[in-house]
């Protein structure tokens, strides 16, 4: 039986790696990312399952699943030429990904699967900080959090619960960490770029800190998400993660201009 040992949520601004290197010790994101990393190291995971949304790099309107398990043996990224950070090869875990796919189908989640992946910054930036040298294998679970119509947040929450059941049923000894990649409220490339929906950000943080995860899932309608900016659907990855943490409240949760950094200790 595998064990879920930790869950963490972080944002993935593509500029973070570069700007930290240019001006070390100046960014709040650097301190917070370090805080999360310390907890990941302490938890000593063997494997990461990462909840992520693509940005038209692995997926396009030609083929855009609501939920998709990454089953590649390995994949490279970030693929975007404009992304100022190192390129990595990330190892997958095919047996676990296949078993999760089947478990999900039998649990009435009509998932998609991808045996080849082009990783974008949203998948790789958190791993750059939390999976140094890409030592641990990573199984991505993609949720369409970027191109309307989005899946229901309540469905994402159920997906997270299913992933938790799967981990506990998986016939392996792995210590599993979950990572949710994404912001709470942000506009990228839209007319409100630079503005942050503080009210929504505070609502999200408040409900997360109180452990009111289902209430958050109910309130995170597509309408509310879109009101907070075109990139705010990444919250769905956090909501999926909360489905997996049960009643545990976060060890810490800090906000940083529309984004959150949080850790749940699960053992």
């Amino acid at each position, binding site marked *: 039986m595998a064990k879920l040992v930790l869950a963490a949520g972080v944002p993935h601004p593509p500029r973070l790696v570069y700007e930290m290197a240019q001006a070390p010790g100046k960014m709040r994101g650097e301190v917070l990312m370090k805080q999360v990393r310390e907890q990941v190291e302490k938890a000593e995971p063997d494997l990461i399952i990462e909840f992520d949304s693509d940005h038209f790099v692995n997926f396009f309107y030609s083929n855009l699943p609501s939920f998709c398990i990454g089953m590649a043996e390995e994949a490279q990224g970030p693929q975007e030429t404009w992304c*100022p950070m190192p390129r990595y090869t990330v190892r997958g875990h095919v047996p676990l990904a296949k078993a999760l796919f089947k478990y999900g189908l039998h649990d009435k989640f009509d998932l998609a699967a991808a045996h080849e992946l082009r990783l974008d910054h949203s998948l790789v930036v958190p791993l750059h900080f939390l999976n140094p040298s890409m030592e641990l294998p990573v199984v991505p679970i993609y949720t369409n959090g970027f191109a309307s119509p989005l899946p229901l947040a309540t469905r994402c929450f159920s997906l997270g619960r299913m992933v938790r059941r799967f981990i506990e049923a998986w016939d392996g000894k792995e210590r599993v960490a979950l990572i949710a990649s994404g912001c709470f409220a942000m506009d990228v490339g839209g007319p409100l770029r630079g503005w942050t929906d503080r009210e929504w950000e505070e609502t999200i943080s408040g409900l997360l800190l109180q452990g009111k995860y289902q209430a958050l899932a109910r309130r995170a309608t597509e309408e509310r998400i879109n009101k907070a900016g075109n990139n705010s659907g990444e919250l769905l990855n956090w909501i999926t993660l909360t489905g997996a943490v049960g009643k545990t409240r976060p060890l810490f949760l800090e906000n940083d201009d529309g984004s959150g950094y949080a850790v749940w200790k699960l053992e």
Partner: protein
Amino acid sequence: MSIYQVNKLLYLTDNDAAFRKRMKENPEEAIKAFSLSQEEHDALTSGAVGKLYQMGVHTFLLNHLSRYELFGVNRDNYLSRIREGMEYDPRFEQGQMPMQYFIKE
């Protein structure tokens, strides 16, 4: 015709190195491979970001016009262009485009 074709050529600009090269060298020629309506073609080639936004181009993809400086769009004019045709909103005052750090190909 559908806005899908505009989305697609912007997607390829970011994801297909050979197509990106064609877009940089001769964008008018490169987009001939796509079946755009006259309205889509004119909005694109005049860098009418606001019009394309109203027509339904996804903003992640629209942003590539500024990243790759196509059809006269760049980081400095992108926000004012996307807001063309919109009513003034005080939230605009907080907005600015972040720096772009290119990696040379």
